[in-house]
């Protein structure tokens, strides 16, 4: 297990390195200077600014510097926002993003597990149909559409929630709901399939033949066995929550990383885009790693097997 984790961490750095490299050269391929939107500068000024950002050096030197910086935890400096370092930018904006992201994951996962389990237990009844319908809605309606609808009806029209203000927990409810729909739908479907599968397996039959009540079978055997594989989709769900957060933060004016990312894209703030890209990748790869380790810890077949899976 330890060897496996070590290998995975090594892979993590390799992947990050590849992402950083790709990002760097992609940004270099962009036509014109990154300052083209500030073309009131004279040639003289431009030269000074370029030198200041190290852009007068050869691409290779810039690349080495960039990677060197990354190794020291330096994600570069924003062209906008008073030349703030990207890491500082992330530092200020991490908390709100993490809060709604984590809340959405928790709400989505738990809700999805309950919904999926219910559908599987009451398979082919109206409960199943309703649960399937809800999860399809969650899967199909993009979070930004949901966000706008929630905001309009709950905040503007019926005035149940405060409008686009980021201050307390209450203001995080709507964005959390909007973001949790997709994980809820995904987990519910996955859970239902897993559990239907488990419920028809031989060991469930054996559990029944031991004299367990139907509830006992579910509680003691079916739930745990169907829950374990759900862990594997936490990674992909984190990706979708992250995707959603970019627009949802925008719609609800939440000062988070997603909102920043979109802003940087529309203002061509390349260093910030690069920095955030690498940061996002880092975050996701860490999530994948944790999920993998977690899976190994809770599934005895992997935990006790020799080495990891695959």
């Amino acid at each position, binding site marked *: 297990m330890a060897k496996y984790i070590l290998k995975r961490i090594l892979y993590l750095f390799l992947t990050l390195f590849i992402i950083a490299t790709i990002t760097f050269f992609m940004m270099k391929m962009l036509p014109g200077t990154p300052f083209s939107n500030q073309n009131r500068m004279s040639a003289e000024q431009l030269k000074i600014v370029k030198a200041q950002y190290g852009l007068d050096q050869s691409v290779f030197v810039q690349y080495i510097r960039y990677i060197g910086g990354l190794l020291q935890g330096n994600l570069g400096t924003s062209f906008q926002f008073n030349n703030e370092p990207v890491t500082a930018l992330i530092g200020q904006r991490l908390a709100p993003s993490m809060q709604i992201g984590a809340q959405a994951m928790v709400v989505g996962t738990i809700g999805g597990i309950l919904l999926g389990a219910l559908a599987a237990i009451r398979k082919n009844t109206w409960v199943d149909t309703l649960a399937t319908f809800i999860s399809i809605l969650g899967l199909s309606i993009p979070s930004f559409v949901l966000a706008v609808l929630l905001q309009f009806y709950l905040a503007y029209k019926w005035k149940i929630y405060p409008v686009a203000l980021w201050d307390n927990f209450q203001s995080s409810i709507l964005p959390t709901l909007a973001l949790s729909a997709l994980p809820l739908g995904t987990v519910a479907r996955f859970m239902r399939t897993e559990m239907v599968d488990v419920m028809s*397996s*031989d*060991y469930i*039959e*054996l*559990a*029944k*033949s*031991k*004299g*367990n*009540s*139907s509830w*006992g079978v579910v509680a*003691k*055997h079916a739930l*745990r*066995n169907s829950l*374990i594989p759900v862990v594997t989709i936490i990674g992909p769900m984190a990706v979708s929550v992250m995707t959603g957060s970019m627009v949802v933060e925008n719609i609800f004016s939440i000062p988070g990383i997603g909102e920043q990312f979109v802003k940087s894209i529309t203002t061509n703030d390349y260093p910030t885009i690069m920095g955030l890209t690498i940061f996002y990748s880092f975050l996701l790869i860490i999530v994948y790693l944790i999920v993998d380790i977690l899976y190994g810890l809770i*599934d*005895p*077949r992997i935990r*006790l*097997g020799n080495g990891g899976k695959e």
Partner: protein
Amino acid sequence: MDKILEVKDLHVDFDTYNGVVHAIRGVSFHLNAGETLAIVGESGSGKSITVRSILQLLAKNGTISKGEVLYHGDDLLQKTDKEMDKLRGNKISMIFQDPMTSLDPTMTIGKQVAEPLLIHNNVSKKDALKRAEEVLRLVGIPNPKARMNDYPHQFSGGQRQRIVIAIAIVDYPEILIADEPTTALDVTVQAQIIDLLKELQQKIGTSIIFITHDLGVVAGIADRVAVMYAGRLVEFGSVNDIFYNPQHPYTWGLLDSMPTLDTNESDRLNSIPGTPPNLLNPPKGDAFAPRNAYAMEIDEEQQPPFFKVSKHHYAATWLLHPNAPKVTPPASILNRYEKFKKLGGNVK
């Protein structure tokens, strides 16, 4: 002898996409206290469904449309779910075919073996686990104390089947239903499991219904044998009756397709040609007729009733009707009749 279980005129239907499958079409048999009854038949003949009906462990699309299952004279089909739960794993327990998939992969075997005790008896977890350990030793798991916290995948197939057996007997059931417990295992392990079952029967005095599609396994364990085909019994009697005085052509076919030690054929051959009928539209007459070299016109028109061969030996074939022509069974069966005479039997 006490009949502890009696199944009467059991009918089971399955609702399927293509229509209703009449999987069991009037099966009756009984089980005496302390004996081992074997049910044999090709796969798909309805053996599992028959015994699952006893515990009411059918798939959701299956219904018992008719019949009685009398346990000490009480009809189990009239019991509530709760009452059935009390019997399962306690008075009547079951061993399934595939030990590789019958155990919960995420639960330690100690807990799995102790589970029936915790469900049915008012015991502490500690006592239940202690009991589980004893039973694991009884079924031949070496060093059970150390292995209580292991998971199923850490055991071999034979060991897993021993664990499944431990689960089934942990609460000293009156009736043990073993549904092809050896089919998934290799030959040497098969023999060990059969020996174990016999030994356990001695020790805890349980009655056993033993299901198999392989007559070869039967001789070593059963007192009586029931032969099943296409959802009905076709012949039943003592082991000697079935092995040395078989009357139904289907039984002949089964015996011929089994590798035997007494007759000098060592290789497994002569599997019965043809396939079982489709039970969506069960045939009007004898379901075996299309595959039967000795079929008569009456076989296609009317189901044969059971004809009495000897006191406890019955067979459902028109060949036993007084008007039927005298047919000569295959040579291998005639050999068996010879042996039966030597055993002091009375061949018809």
